[in-house]
């Protein structure tokens, strides 16, 4: 092959490789994007049942319950318009607490409760996850109307 033909072959291979990996990447992307819903949106039935998503809001004061000696904990997340009961089994992050903002990743059960696979709380007691702040703001303005 002439150098020119060789280069054309190389470029052809490269273009094909990039196209294949782009297709695979976009596929993985569609499967792995997680949407965020506020408790009000979940209550309005906007959240999917069949796939996971994230919810966020405030942990209601006095709602954290744990069976003594068990890893399973339950609490209620609210945006002050609607609330959702959440259960989680595992070690909670340091800054999880009542009256604090929280984001949980998991799925919705048929009875309207949420099973969390991961619970996130920020590393700063003044901090409010932006999604949570926004969700609270939306609920507040919806009430005002």
């Amino acid at each position, binding site marked *: *092959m002439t*150098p020119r033909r*060789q*280069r054309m*072959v*190389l470029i052809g291979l*490269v273009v094909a*490789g*990039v196209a294949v*990996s782009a297709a*695979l*990447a976009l596929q*993985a*992307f569609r*499967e*792995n*994007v*997680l*949407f*965020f819903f506020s408790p009000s949106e979940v209550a309005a039935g906007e959240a999917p049942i069949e796939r996971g998503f*994230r919810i966020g809001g405030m942990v209601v004061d006095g709602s954290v319950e*744990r069976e*003594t*000696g*068990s*890893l399973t904990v339950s609490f209620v997340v609210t945006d002050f318009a609607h609330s959702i009961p959440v259960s989680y*089994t*595992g*070690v*909670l992050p*340091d*800054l999880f607490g009542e009256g604090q903002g929280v984001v949980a*990743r998991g799925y919705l059960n048929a009875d309207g409760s949420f099973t969390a696979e991961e619970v996130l709380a*920020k*590393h*700063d*007691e*003044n*901090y409010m*996850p*932006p*999604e949570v702040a*926004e969700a609270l703001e939306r609920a507040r303005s919806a009430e005002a109307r």
Partner: protein
Amino acid sequence: MIPELGQFALILALGLSLIQVALPLAGATVGRADWMAYARPMAAGQFVFIAAAFAILARSFLSDDFSVSFVAAHSNSALPWAYKLAAVWGGHEGSLLLWLLILAAWTLAVAFGSRSLPDVYAARVIGVLGIVTVGMLLFTLLTSNPFDRALPPPADGNDLNPLLQDPALVIHPPILYAGYVGLSVPFAFAIAALLSGSLDKRWARWTRPWTIAAWLFLTIGIALGSWWAYYELGWGGWWFWDPVENASFMPWLAGTALIHSLAVTERRGIFKSWTVLLAIAAFSLSLLGTFLVRSGVLISVHAFASDPERGMFILLLLSTISGGALLLYAIRAKRLEAEGGFRLVSREAFLLLNNILLIVATGVVLLGTLYPLFLDALGLGTVSVGPPYFNSVFLIPMLPLAVLLGAGMHASWLTMQGNALLQKLAPAAVVALLGALALLLLVFRGAESAMTAIGLIVGSWVVVTALWDPLRRGFSGDRSRIPLSRAQWGMTLAHLGVGLFILGVTVTSSYGIESDNAMQPGDMVEIAGYEFEFRGTREVEGVNYDAYEGEFAVRRDGRLMTVLAPQKRIYRVQTSPMTEAAIDPGLSRDLFVALGDPLGGGAWSVRIQYKPMLRFIWLGALVMAFGGLLAASDRRYWLARREVRSAAGVPQTAESA
């Protein structure tokens, strides 16, 4: 009074760096040597004043001057002195000042390490670096002055975030920034080449050691961050694909591509405009990282509280610097002509593939990092792109990259027969396969999935091919051959590091065990042949925190191996809880115990992990960085400098080199 001097020093530095931009760049354009001569003194001057401002801020921290609001927000009189010093970069304003100090230091190093460069060239490089300095100084002075006063001063400070009170934090940001900011040097060289309209092999030879130096700092910085996250906040994970981690990883990927593309440009005088584009891209990604971290658009430990005005300013700076560079590239790049072509089977072709795959990898990370921001900005919903996306997609370019890496190292420049290359590689492939099988069958006794086997094979392939030539030389005992140069040793070690890293990642993620347990005092949990006995907790007092300390006896085959004491700390000033894991590190495995929450009745939730070969991940990164150090200190870069200098003084001797 003294903090005001700090601000004043920054203003003076701004004045000097404005001169550092204007006169040398104008002088280089119109050919006035007396204007260009301002470059070095101004570079030295702006360093002195930025260093003075930094020293003054450090003094305010060490002397507990809480009338400075940045000090009041990030320090406390009870903080140990080393953390007071580290608190200088524990918040937004101070970390910007650190950014500036490091940029000034790089500028100084270039100004005085580039005496052999042609004057016009050096003036342009220093002038371009000055543009970045001016931008960051304006940013600091206009939006984030670290010397602002809080009047009346509070009685005591708000304390440093407990997560940041850690030895790794003292060194992680400076080293990471040295890498981030160091990428401004190849950027400046690239712009200088575009301005002058010519780029030859000598250019690549000047640019390469600086690029490798920045890259090796970036490598160590990222590894330190990963290590810190592992023991301090990650509950045992070492990489989270957190947007801020990605922000440092993207310049690393582009910088790695740049190093390889520079190799081709230095050796063959081709890929010129591509190399320039990569240099622009690598530094733009650094600036993008700064924007992501500083603008508050991201949710992360690193995202210091900040206001939108700052985000706008950095975005403006990013678009000015990168946009200007790209515009210049569009106008001038066609002048950079290749000095020949290349063949399908050659070192150049492999390096081209390396570049394409690394850029695909960068694109994959960029897509996952920015997509949620775009969607949010357009009001289309709030989404997040989690580790599953990155873990699966990142492998698509990386696996072929690792396979090609082994082959490319053994390909010759210019051209070679495909058969000759295959013959050379076949024995290495056999050794790698046997090594992977031995690990799989004898050490770990089976694989979880096909990916485990693939990872082990690819990892040992990279290790074996990296060491093949040096080992063969050693065993054949042939002393007559030319010894490997430092650059060759550098390449060998850097690639060996990649192999160790791949092995570490594969083994940790395939054979690692994580378990959350509810444990009463006296309870025992067995993981991977280790027995963890919980003996209960007691209260302990630290310098500035109180803690519950658990006691775990670790036994293997009935023999006591170690006693681990994880803590749950409450820092007194911010009253925030923090988990301090206890780790028994080892090259073959890490044992990790962390206390979760009290479950009542003396019981605790406890996370226990067994992480085999975890240390190989950071060891690999360190070996890579050490390879970079060897490569950057190769004699030819320093010989080349002397050669050019003598060539400039006594032209007729230039041929002898």
